[in-house]
C-alpha cells in the first residue's frame, strides 16, 4: 500500500496550452507543491511548422506565448508558490514536453484537458496528451475540465 504521506511529486512539469484549463491546473499543482515543498516548471510549447526553421524568432516576438506563461506564473504566485517558466519552440508539442520533463528529471507531468463546447460537446483529446501518456517516463496527471451543467 502506498505511503499516503509521501509527496505525489518532487518536481512537476505543468504543460500550458493557453486554454481555460491552465489556471485550474496551475492552481492545483501549486497547492500540492506548496504543501510538499515541491518544484514546479510551467512549459509552453509553440509549434513551428516545417515551412520555418526551428529556431525562427516566433515565440520570442509573440505576446500571446509570453502571456500564457505570465498568467500561469501569476496564478502560482496567487497560490503562494513559485513557478519556473519555460518557453519552447518545437515541431511536436508532446515530444517537447516529455523531453523537457526528462531533462529536468521531473517525476510528474500535469496536463489539462478542456471540454470542447462546440459540436454537441466532447473532449478533444488531440494528439499531445496521448503522446505524453504513452511516452512520459514519469507519472502523468490529466486534469479534465468539468462538464458544463447542461451537458452533465
Amino acid at each position, binding site marked *: 500500500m502506498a505511503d499516503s504521506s509521501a509527496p505525489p511529486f518532487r518536481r512537476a512539469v505543468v504543460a500550458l496550452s493557453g486554454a481555460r484549463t491552465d489556471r485550474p491546473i496551475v492552481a492545483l499543482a501549486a497547492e500540492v507543491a506548496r504543501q510538499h515543498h515541491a518544484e514546479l516548471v510551467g512549459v509552453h*510549447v*509553440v509549434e513551428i511548422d516545417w515551412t520555418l526553421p*526551428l*529556431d525562427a*524568432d516566433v*515565440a*520570442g516576438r509573440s*505576446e500571446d*506565448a*509570453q*502571456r500564457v*506563461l*505570465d*498568467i500561469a*506564473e*501569476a496564478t502560482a504566485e496567487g497560490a503562494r508558490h513559485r513557478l519556473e*517558466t*519555460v*518557453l*519552447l*519552440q*518545437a*515541431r*511536436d508539442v508532446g*515530444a*517537447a514536453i*516529455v*523531453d*523537457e520533463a*526528462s*531533462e529536468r528529471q521531473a517525476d510528474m507531468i500535469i496536463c489539462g484537458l478542456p471540454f470542447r463546447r462546440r459540436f454537441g460537446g466532447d473532449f478533444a483529446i488531440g494528439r499531445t496528451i496521448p503522446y505524453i501518456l504513452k511516452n512520459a517516463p514519469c507519472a502523468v496527471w490529466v486534469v479534465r475540465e468539468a462538464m458544463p451543467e447542461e451537458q452533465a
Partner: protein
Amino acid sequence: MIGGRRPIQGRKLADKRVRVERPHSAYFRYAGPGQLVAKPAASQARSGFGRQWLRAKAWLIGRPLASEDEISERLSKRLALPIFSSDAISSSAYATEEILKVLALAGAGALFLSIPLAIAITGLLTVVAISYRQVCRAFPGGGGAYAVARKELLPILGLVAAGALLIDYVMTVAVSTSSAMDQLISMAPVLDNGQDHRLRIGIAVVVIALITVANLRGLRESGNIFAVPTYLFVGLALLIVMAGVFHVVTGTVTPFPPQPEVTPMGTQAIGTFLILRAFASGSVALTGVEAIANGVPAFKPPEAKNAANTMLAMAVLLGTIFIGVTVIAHAYQIVPSQDLSGGPTVIAMVAQTAFGKDGPLFYVFQMATALILFLAANTSFNAFPRLGAILAEDGYFPRQFSFRGDRLAYSWGIVLLAAIAAGLYVLFGGNTTNLIPLYSVGVFVCFTLSQAGMVRHWVRTHDSGWWWRGIVNAFGALLTLVVLVIVLTEKFEHGAWVVAVLIPTLVAMMLFIQRQYRASARQLAVRPEFVLPPKLREERAIVPVPGLTRAVVRAVNVARSVADDVIAVYISDDPEDARAMRERWERQVPGVQLVIVESPYRALAGPFMAYLDVLDRAWPPGHEEPITFVVVPEYVARHWWERILYNQSARRLRALLVGRPHTVVVDVPYRRDEADRFHGLDAESSTPADA
C-alpha cells in the same frame, strides 16, 4: 530572442526543441495586449547604497506589499476597534480627572457634580455616536466631518472641519502621550522627579517613534501589534467598574486615603461658570469618536456596516468605563493629584480600589492604561494620513500625501504627524493640561459641522427615516455647538485661541495649495478636441563644449540624432586656446559647426545663455520658434565623493536653463567605467572636470 539558437536534442532523433529566452520575465509580466505589470524586481535599487537602503527599510517596516494586497490589509471589526477606538476609549483614563481638577477649584463639596457632568457628557457621546454611525453609512468613502461639510454645506466649511481634524489628530498624539507618561510615572515615580522632565520627554519621543514605525509597517500589522493592550485595558477597566459598583451597591466603600500630592481645594463659588468649565474639560472624553467615520474604507466589506457597528461597540465601552470610573472616584472620595507632582492619576487610584496598591493586577492595569494612551496616538496615526490622502486627492494637500508607501500606508502623513506631535510635546514640556485647551476645540468644530451637514443630507436625500435621523443630527449639532462655544469661551485664554488662529491658517494654506494645483492644471490641460498635429516645429541642438573629451563626442553624437542643425559652443577666455580648439575640432569632428565665444570676463554660463538669446532673435520673424535642445555632456564619476570634483559648470548651466522658453535640456552621461569600451578620440588634452 532565442537562447543559444542551437536546437536541443530530444530523446528521439527527430525530436528537437529550442528554448526561448524571456528577457522581460524577470521584471515584468504581460497583463493584456500592450500592457505590462512590474514585478518587485523592477523596483529594486540599482546602486549598492540603494540596495542597502532598501534592505534596511525592509527590515524596519517589512517587505513591500503590492497594491492588490490592499484588500487583505483591510481591518476586521475585531482589529478595527483597537485601531480606531483606542483614542476614544483611552479618553476615559483622563476625562474624569479633568472634571475633578476643575471642580476642585470650588472645594471638596463641588466634587459630587462630577457624576451629573459625566452623565451629561455620556448623553452627548450617545448623540454624537448615533450621528457618526449615520455618517459612516452616508459617506462610505471616509473623510468624516470634512467629507460631510464639503458636500452638504460649503467647501470652505469642509476645509474648516479638515483643519480642525488635523489639529485634533496632532493634539491626540501629544495629549495621549503625555497622559501615558503620567500613568507610567504613577507606577514608577523615578521617571520624573517633578523638576527635571527630560527623561519623561525622551521616553515619550521614543514611543512616538516606535508607533510611527509600527504604522509604516501597514494597517493590519499595526492592528495586530496594538490589539492586545487595548483589549487588556478594556477588560480590566470593566472589571474595576464592576468591582467598584459592587462595593457602592453593597455599601462596603472605604474612602481612599489622602495623597501628599493632592490638588489643593479652592474656594471659588459653585456657579454656572465653573460647571460649564468642568463640562468643557470632561468633554475630552469625546475626542477620537470621529476617527471611525474618517477611516471607513479601511474596514473589510461591507465597510459602512462594519464601521457603524464598531462605532456602536466603541461608544458603549467608552460610556460604561467613563461613568463607572467617575462613580467610583466619587464614592471613594478620590481627589486628583497636582500637575507634574508625580502623584497618582485618578484612574490609578480607582484601579487601586479594586486591585490594591501593590497587587499585580494594579501594575498590569497601569501598564495597560499607559499602553492604551500611547495607542490612542495610534488612532491618529491611522486617521491623520487618511484625511491627508483625501485632502491631497481633492487638491488641498500636496499630492505626496495620497501616495501609499511600501506597506500601503500613507507614509508622508504618518511621518509628518509624528514630527509635529513630537515637536509639540517637547515644546510644551510634556504637560497634558497645557495641551488640552488646544485639543477639544477642534473636536467640537468637527462634531458641529458634520452633524449640521448630515441634517442637510437627510433633508436633501429624503432617505428612509430621514426625518428622525435629521432630528437626531439637528439636536446633536445644537448640543455640540453649545459645547463648542463653552469650550472656546472657557479655554480661550488658556490656549484655545491658538486653535482659533490655527484653523483659519490651515484653511488658507489648503486654499493656496488648491489654487496652485488648479493654476498648473489649467496651464497643462489638453483640450478634448486637440489632436497631435504632424511635426511642424524645427529643432536645433546646441552643445556646450568645455573641450574635446569623450563625453563631448558622445554628446555631439546624441545631438546629431536629435536634430540636423547642431552647433557646438566653446566659451574661452584665452584666444590661443580657442585657436587650438578650433584647429583640433575641425580635424577631429568634421561636419559639426563650432562657435567659439571669447569671454574676456571669464564668465561661462552668462555668455552661453546670451548666445542662445541671440540665436532666438536671429530666427526669421513669422516662423514659429524652433525647439532648442541644449545637450549637456556630463562625466559621471564612480564614487559619490568624486562627483563634487566634476560637472559644476554643467550643473550651473542646467539651473539657468530650467524654465527657458522653447528649450529642452538633455543630459548625456559618460560613465567612467565606459572608458575601456570607448574606441573614439583620444582625450588626453582635456580633463573630465571641464565637462
